[in-house]
Each structure stands twice: as C-alpha cells, then as structure tokens.
C-alpha cells in the first residue's frame, strides 16, 4: 500500500469520500421557469418561486429528471422508479424558502460504480452511494459593505445532482482522478458542462485517517471545492492536520470545514456549527416522482458510448498505449475526432499524430478542437500519405503545419509545394552515385571499416533530394552500393 502516510508514530491510512454537486445542464431551473444562464445581472434569473414569495409552488422540470436518469445510467447505477423530494430545513440568507428541496430517504439514483484508470494502466473501482436531485442556493457576497452581506438569488433553484461516492479513495491523487473521471462522464453524457470555474462542479470532501486495518476514524467535511488543485490541497491539509491532532493525543471533531484558497488550509465553518438538525421530511408541495421503466429504457438506448468502453476498444482492438488512449478519450469530442480520423488509417499512427502534433499545435495556439481548421478527414488524409509512402514523416510535419494554418488538404499542399517523396529507384541511384563521387575519401574510409559513416551518406543523399527521397529506399540502395 503505497498510499499510506508516514506519521511521527507510524503509518496512517487515509479514507476519502466525495460529494460532488454537479449543475444539471438544463435551460430552466429545477422547480421554476427562470433561466440557468451564468453571469446575469443580480436577481435577473429569479422567478417568484425562487424568491419564495408567499403562495408560490414548485413544479419539476422534466429535463432535470431525465438528466439525472442519464447520469445514473452512465454510472451503471440503479434507477429508482419511485423517488421522493424532501425538505432540508435550515435558515440562511441565500436560502429564501428556509429549506432546500432535496432527496433524502429515496433518491432518484441508487448504487453505482465509477472506474478509475491509474497511470500504470491498472484500474480501481470507486463505489457510488447515490445520486439525488436538489436545488442550488443563492450567492451571498460579504465584501461589498462593511456591515452588510448582499444576496443574489440567480443560482437559487438551479438543479444540482449530488453524487455521493463511497469512502473508497485512499489519496488526494485518487480523489482528483475520481473527479476528473466523473467530470468526463458527465460531459460525455451532456448532463453537466463540468465548468468548475463557474461552479458547475463542486466537491465536498469527507476525510478521515486511521491505522491500517482499524475501523473508520472520525471524518470532517470540507465544503465547496471548485478545482482539482483545491481538492488535493484540502485533502493533504486535512490529512496532515488530523494526523497531528491524533498523534498529539487529541480527537477529531466531526464538523464542516471551509477551505481557504489563499492559504491552502481548512478551518471550522462557524455558521454551520449548530445547524445540523435539518428536520428532513417529504415536501408536501410535491408528489412522489414516478419514472416508467420504458422511459429508463428509452434514455438508456439513446445514451452515447462512454469513455470506459471506448478505452477498451482503443487499447484492445486498436492497440494504443494506455497513455494515448486516456488522452484521446478525455473528451467526447476528441474521441469522436479520433474515431473519424483513424477509421481507414493506421490507428496507432493517427493516435500519435493527434496526441503529439495536433494537441501540441492546439496547445501552442490556445485553440480548442472545436475551432481547429484540420478536420478529422484531413488528418486522416495526411496519415494516409505517410502510410502509402507519398511523403515522409518529416515532410508530413511541415505539411501539417500548413494544414493547421490554412485548413488545406494534405494532398493539395503536397502537390502545390512539390513535396512528393522520390521513390524512383533510378533517381535515387543517380543521387547516391553523385554523393559517392563527391566524397571518395569517405567512401574509402567507410569501406576500410568506419561503419559509422553510413549515416553521413544517408544525410547527404536526403539533403540532395531536399528531403523527398524515400528514406527506406535510400538506405537499401546506399547499403548495396557502399558494401558492393
């Protein structure tokens, strides 16, 4: 177990469970017709329902239900055909109703599983405890006024999926891998945009430590972490803090903590101290959510292919390396690009061109695949030219650079710039004869035993051909002439 942490008094095992809040991709809110769009003027995306005006009632958005089902299916989870919305009661400035509509006893999605692909090519399975639908809260701003907080209800009532993992993770890196994989699945499914900067995906991390083999220790929950880096920092800080507290003879309080992004530390959340009695009960404004099995079947049939399955094909059937596969499948668009580009080509060669040249160029130019001028067909075409010997790999790089700039087809570029590889054995022989004639001394040296000079001759011939000579043929003919 390489994940064990060394303390002053021995080794500790870290136990991590995550509650991820993923904003459901939908036009309107979970229980009101107000928009979910990011960045509106304060309180512009607010209906009278969201503002909890007297007499206002919730009506559920069908698409949010379906997105939750899709996500459940993507997590290989059980879909509960009957689920119930409960009220979670607490007072807070950004919670206008005085309760959050959530699902407590009977969530829409039950147990599932998420597979982590580790860098060494091995896999780990992380259990999913449940997924439920609930309302997001509004936003409080504490820095606008010395003695006041300002409240914006634009986010209030936006649909969230709370996805709760089992306490199956053992390191900060694993937790980060989990969130990354979850984000990828959500984006494949189109059920959450995964935009962590805008708060579309936030994680609460539950951390505890124990001696290996011992029962679970007391956990703390650090709330609302909105980047992979913060998740890892918060976990590392909590692990170190908890070990120190216990090793100093203290005890861990089960509590909610806040993460300070500037210091990378966590601290007790004051406002939640006495708010643990949420008095959940079924929301009497809503009826049980009943999902016909046929609806689940329909959604299941329409589900896109998910990364795990694509990975299996890429590493199995196509023979790609674990690394190339993981880079290609990270986004649904990338995987689709790859499938299209490599359909009739050498799969490995296309993967190599994508991960090295294409992604390198995109990175350098700051473009995304969506605005890239090189179509999958064009990249496939370029690889085709390499495969059939029309151009060498070296020339191909220049061709690609032009493609990336102009969006032109590889064949057209090769034609225009006369880059076609010389594979005519007569022409190559002539060039070789010329080079040998101009370097008689080196020919003697080579024949005298200085084998290393072979590379020199190859270089000279390629130079004479302006790089267009077929390198395989050059090698073959040169070897025959020099040795002959």
């Amino acid at each position, binding site marked *: 177990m390489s994940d064990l942490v060394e303390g002053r008094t021995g080794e500790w095992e870290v136990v991590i469970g995550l509650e991820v809040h993923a904003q459901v991709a939908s036009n309107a809110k979970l229980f009101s017709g107000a928009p979910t769009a990011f960045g509106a003027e304060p309180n512009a995306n607010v209906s009278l329902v969201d503002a909890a*005006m007297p*007499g206002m*009632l919730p009506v559920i958005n069908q698409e949010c239900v379906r997105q939750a089902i899709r996500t459940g299916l993507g997590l290989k989870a059980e879909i509960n055909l009957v689920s119930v919305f409960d009220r979670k009661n607490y007072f807070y400035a950004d919670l206008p109703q005085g309760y959050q509509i959530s699902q407590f006893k009977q969530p829409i999605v039950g147990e599932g599983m998420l597979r982590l692909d580790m860098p060494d090519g091995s896999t780990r399975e992380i259990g999913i405890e449940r997924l439920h639908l609930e309302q997001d809260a509004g936003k409080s701003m504490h820095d606008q006024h010395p003695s006041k*907080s300002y409240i914006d209800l634009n986010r209030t009532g936006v649909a969230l999926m709370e996805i709760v993992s089992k306490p199956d993770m053992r390191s900060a890196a694993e937790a980060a891998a989990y969130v990354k994989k979850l984000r990828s699945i959500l984006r494949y499914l189109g059920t959450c945009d995964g935009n962590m900067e805008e708060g579309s995906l936030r994680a609460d991390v539950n951390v505890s430590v124990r001696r290996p083999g011992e029962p679970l220790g007391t956990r703390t929950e650090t709330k609302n972490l909105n980047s992979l880096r913060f998740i890892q920092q918060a976990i590392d800080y909590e692990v170190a803090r908890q070990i120190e507290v216990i090793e100093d003879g203290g005890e861990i309080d089960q509590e909610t903590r806040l993460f300070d992004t500037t210091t990378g530390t966590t601290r007790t959340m004051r406002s939640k101290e006495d708010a643990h009695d949420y008095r959940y*009960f079924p*929301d*009497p404004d809503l009826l049980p959510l009943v999902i016909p099995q046929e609806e689940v079947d329909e959604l299941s049939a329409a589900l896109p292919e998910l990364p795990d399955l694509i990975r299996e094909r890429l590493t199995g059937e196509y023979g790609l390396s674990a690394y190339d596969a993981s880079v290609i499948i990270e986004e649904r668009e990338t995987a689709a690009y790859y499938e299209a580009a490599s359909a009739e080509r050498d799969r490995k060669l296309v993967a190599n061109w994508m991960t090295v040249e294409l992604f390198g160029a995109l990175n350098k130019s700051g473009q995304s695949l969506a605005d890239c001028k090189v179509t999958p067909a064009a990249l496939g075409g370029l690889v085709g030219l390499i495969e059939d010997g029309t151009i060498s790999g070296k020339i191909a790089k220049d061709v690609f650079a032009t493609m990336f700039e102009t969006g032109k087809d590889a064949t057209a570029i090769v034609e225009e710039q006369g880059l076609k590889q010389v594979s005519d054995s007569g022409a190559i022989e002539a060039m070789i004869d010329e080079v040998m004639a101009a370097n008689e001394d080196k020919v003697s040296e080579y024949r005298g035993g200085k084998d290393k000079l072979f590379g020199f001759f190859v270089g000279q011939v390629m130079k004479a051909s302006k790089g267009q000579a077929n390198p395989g043929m050059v090698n073959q003919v040169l070897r025959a002439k020099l040795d002959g």
Partner: protein
Amino acid sequence: MSDLLSLSAVAARAALDAGEISAPELTSAYLAAVEETAPLNNYVAVTAERALDMAAASQTRIKSGEAGLIEGIPVGVKDLFCTAGVASTACSRILEGFTPTYESTVTANLWREGGVMLGKLNCDEFAMGSGNETSAYGPAVNPWTGADGVELVPGGSSGGSASAVAARAALLATGTDTGGSIRQPAAFCGIVGMKPTYGRCSRWGIVAFASSLDQAGPFSRSVADNALMMQAMAGHDTKDSTSAATPLPDLMAALDKGVKGMKIGVPSEYVMDGMDSEVVALWEQGQAWLRDAGAELVAISLPHTKYALPAYYIIAPAEASSNLARYDGVRYGLRVEADSLDEMYAETRAAGFGEEVQRRILIGTYVLSAGYYDAYYLKAQKVRRLIKQDFDTAFETVDAILTPATPTAAFPVGRKVDDPVTNYLNDVFTVPANLAGLPGMALPAGLNSDGLPLGLQILGRPFDEASLYSIGRVIEDAAAFSAVPQRRAGGAS
C-alpha cells in the same frame, strides 16, 4: 337596498342578465353593507374603488352577452389569498405591508368568471385557529349574538369570510380549510361552506399553512350559490403539482338529483364525550330527513376517528414550521433590524408571529427534530394512512357520510381557555376529511336553545362533490333554515 342584499347569487345572476338590476347597483349595495357591518371586523381591507371598476366592467360584459358564471357577484376574499396590488397579510404582522404583484389562481378564476372583489377578509393568523381570535387585526365577530347580547366568535380560521357572508356583507366569499377552517365557521355562522377534495382548487398564490391539507373553498348562504361559486373557482392548475386533472362535473345539475337510492353512512365514532345533546338531536333529525327523501341510512365505523386530531396536530404544525420559514425579514414583510443575521431572523419572527403561530411552529419544529421524527411525525403519517383506509372501506358501502359539523355552537369571543388543546377540539369532526383529502360540506340545519345555528357535515368520496350538493340540497329543503343573524346588514328583513 335590503332587497338587493336578500338576493341569492343564483337569483342575482338571473336578475343581472334580465336587466332587472345592474352590477354597479348590486356592488354599491354590498359596499354599503360592508360599511354597515364594520363593527364585526370581518374585513381587513375594503377595495371599494376596484369593486366599482370591476362591477362596471361586469355590466359591459353582461350587456354584450359575455357574462361569466358569477358575473357581477360581489365576493369577499380571505386574506390568505394573494391578490395583485392589494395588501395580503394572512392577518399576520410578519406580512405587514406585503403587496403581491401576482393573483392567486383561485381568485384569478373568480375574476375571470366575472366576480367583483369587495376586499380582504379577516382570518386567524396564517389560518391557525378556530375562532378568528389569533388575527393581527383583532377578532372578527359572529353576526349571531349569544344570550345577553354576548359577542360570539364566527369560528375560524375563515371567520371573517363566514361572518361577512352571514351578515350579508358579501354575497360569496373564499375560505381555506386545513382542519375545518371553512366548515366550522360556516356552521357557527349558519351558512354553507364547502371544502372540496384535496387537489380540486389550486393552492397557487394562497399563503400556505399545511400544504398536504390546505384546500380553498366557497362560502355562501345557499347550497345552489355554493355550487355556482365552486364551479367558478375550481379547476386544474399546472402551477400546483398537487392540483388534480380530474374534470369538475356539472355541480348545478347535481342540485336537483335528490338522494333516492343513495346510501348514507352514519359513523358511530362521531358521538363524543361532552358533545352537546342538541347537536346529537340535530344529527338524528338530519338522518330522518334523508331517510324521508329516499336515502338508505347505514351505520358505519370509522375506528381511527379519535386519533385524527392528535395526528393532525403533528402533521399540520410540522408542515407549517417549514412553510413559515420563508418569513424571515429578508425579502418582504416585517424586519426587525439587528446586528447579526440570526438575531435579525429571531427578533423579526418573534415580533411578527403571534402566540399561537409561534406555538405551532415550535411544536412542528420539535416533532421533526432529530430523535423525535419517528415517534411523532412518522407515527402521525402512519395513523393518517389508517384514517384514510377507514374512509376507503366505508365508501365501499356508502355514497356519503353524515356527521355533525361541530361539537357545539359558536362560543363567546375572548372565552378563557387555559390549555390550547381545548380549542383544538373544535375541529374534531372536520379534521378527518383533511387528513384523507375528502370533500366535506357544512350547512345550517337548525338552531339550538340559545337561538344559535348548528350545522351538519356531509363527507363524500374523492372528487364526488356533486353528491354532496345533491345531499346538501335535500337537507337545505328539509331544514328550511330561515333564521337570520341579529347583526346583519339591511336589518332583519
């Protein structure tokens, strides 16, 4: 004027269509009646100008043959309904000055059908009470007067509504009924009150008390008027997830169907300790009337009746404690300034909620809190199922159930009661219908020896309001209840 006030809504509609009277005339008569009965404190706001504008518009529609079901009929609105541009406070200080920008579905339906809004009617604060004594505007008073002229409560929570209709200060009025808040005041004031099936009337725009129990319904002086108003206010509303899509039958057509061949259940458990003997006698009289009209009376058992009230006093406060959390001083209504947010909440809610509301919020908070949820809330929800099953079983053999509406007649305003439970017992006959979601009608059937009205209650199958109107009409005809309250507008003509 008194002629106009003595017209039923059905008769007024006919007279309006025939051009014998005009809508502005009728409305003016009622506005005058509102003023005349002002000492009853049944209105908390009178919208005279709006009423006259609406009446004028009604007159135009009547003339062009576009009259709605209640075109030109003056209607009072319980202050629990949100009415656009008119302060709506649930008779609570915490909603002081709150003026909705929206109209509740039920009142919007009434205005769409031509109703004319007279104003907002007094009620118990957040509909919590059985005497209209918890209102921030002070108690509404019953137009019926007790012995020695003692002032009586109109019942509650829709006390202002019942008082106004009985006193002829409104021809029709809306109420809401969570545990009897329409039927009990109707009985106390000698008028007809209907709590329809849960889901029949939209709850959208009505200040919530207990969402799984609240239903809006009509008050009227006759069964036919009640059916007319019900027809105008009910209907499916997609803005309320608990609203039923079940179509409303023609209630006016049900009025003359009679009860021949109907089986009417008489539950043995509705005889209670301390029940007024006159109430029992009236109940027996009611059974005789129905038998005479051709119905078969059947003894039935509703074994869990006794437990309805305690279950109700867990479920209703639990839901209320959550429903009333939104009154926090942040977005509308009263705010008591304080240094911290939590203090602001606590001071605002202490100042804004009256004693009974606070008591119920605390009970509701307690029964939902960690460690008590199973023992109280969950237990009550289980008993609620048993109560519903009692009715389901009964309705396998009977078409409706006849019971007294209240254990006693109206009691004096300010009657001193040392423990809240005594007050809660007023709802003993009405609460089961709310727990089971059934329709229930209360209507006057006689007077007690003090000359105060006593009412009977008819309970029906879900969505079978029509049978209640058939039965109600038979009782109304047989009882020929013609007594009138002392303090009604236009004198006892």
